[in-house]
């Protein structure tokens, strides 16, 4: 399994044709206390860059874009009861949705963990 990162502060775990998407620990830290996560319906298809989810913190609503094109095959139901999972475990249990990728070549432009760390340090 390989993990990729975007400059919109999302992480993507890729296993075969399935990509699991969440927001990074840096992102949750910036957003603060998360009180609601609006997830896409299973079966929704996204082009890279489409609005895919919305994270509501105490103060603000923030869009999460599809980092890659694909069809939603599963969403993280645990976030419905416990949106704060995104704060406590953003990069594992706080995942948002799983996509069946339609164009895995889109992964090529994404960052590795080391590159993302460097990117965050530059902000």
């Amino acid at each position: 399994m390989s993990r990729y990162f975007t400059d919109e502060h999302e992480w993507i775990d890729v296993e075969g044709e399935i990509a699991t998407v969440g927001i990074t620990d840096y992102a949750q830290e910036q957003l603060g206390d998360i009180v609601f996560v609006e997830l896409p319906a299973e079966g929704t298809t996204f082009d890279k860059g489409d609005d895919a989810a919305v994270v509501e913190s105490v103060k603000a609503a923030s869009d999460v874009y599809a980092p890659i094109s694909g069809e939603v095959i599963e969403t993280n139901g645990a976030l419905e009861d416990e949106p704060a999972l995104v704060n406590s475990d953003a990069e594992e249990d706080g995942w948002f949705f799983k996509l069946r990728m339609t164009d895995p070549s889109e992964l090529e432009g994404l960052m590795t963990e080391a590159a993302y760390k460097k990117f965050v340090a530059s902000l």
Partner: protein
Amino acid sequence: MTATDNIATLEESLPLEALPLDAWHRARGARMVGFAGYHMPIQYDGIMAEHGWTREHAGLFDVSHMGQLTFSGEGVDEALELLLPSDIKGLKPFRQRYSMLLDRDGGILDDLMVSRLGDGAFDDAAIYMVVNGATKYDDIAWMIEHLPDAVIMNHMADQALLALQGPEAGEAMAVLVPGTAELTFMQCGAFEWNGVPLWISRSGYTGEDGFEISLPADAANAFADALCALPQVKPIGLGARDSLRLEAGLPLYGHDLTPAVSTIGADLGFAISKRRREEGGFIGHGRVMKELADGPGAKRVGLTIEGRLPAREGAQIYVGDVQVGDVTSGGFAPTVGAPIAMGWVSLPHSAIGTALEIEVRGKRIGAKVAPMPFVPHNYRRKA
């Protein structure tokens, strides 16, 4: 991700200024944002934790961005009664009142606190006023236009303003300034701490007991340090200030109150005394009297929201296919444990209990007109 933060509105045209406690906030790990033209702390530990701390203990807020003004000179009461709908002539020394500036059409230019000084505070001025930070320069220009030459208005730009709020604010403040134990809600007075002159009122913007402390900017660091050295006190950012005031049902100028809305619709008629209603003689009186007689077109109301999805400022309020209002403030309410909102709805739909719908990202969520405050006020009133 793109965050659209409601209150961290950057005024991109002007460089942000630093307030007296700028370095103090940064040293305590505050995340700073642009607000009302200044760098201000939005949070330290997190909004939920800071909100909860203020409801249980005491939170220290830096509100030095607000405008602090004094008025003195011959005929000052009469002059201010032209500008404010409140009873100024009947305002006794060491008493504070909530009031507002109205335009000629009765629209709200700002809301503010006004108090009568005493004990020689602020160079023997007669009246002290605190106005909103984002509007202070417009307020000053408006008042200059309407004040006679004999009345002197002084903008105290070198004065810091702190607020200590929460059920333990009284005991914490009494450690540093014992005399404040005598103050009850909306009373104020001149005090001293280590030789520093303080003007302190028992009031605030959280619904909790507490104080607002005006002091020279060069003493603000030491006083804030002394307060935060007490076990009851932690610094609190603007984020929790907003969620606390929303739960307390208190309107935020520029959001819930604007020049487009009126005092009576805003449910702020309590600020206008019987004498002032009858006698008039203040700018905007016509609108007030008309709305007292005929009712306002729309009212400011509280809204409880079904489910967990917050409805935020700008969301439209519906009955069926008809838009009947807008959300003007909204978010997750930490003490309530659910989303709440404040909004303006047309009069026929403003009664407590009225079922409404709010559109959030194309979806309708259920809402109900609710009494405010959402969390009971905990003021220390005179027995």
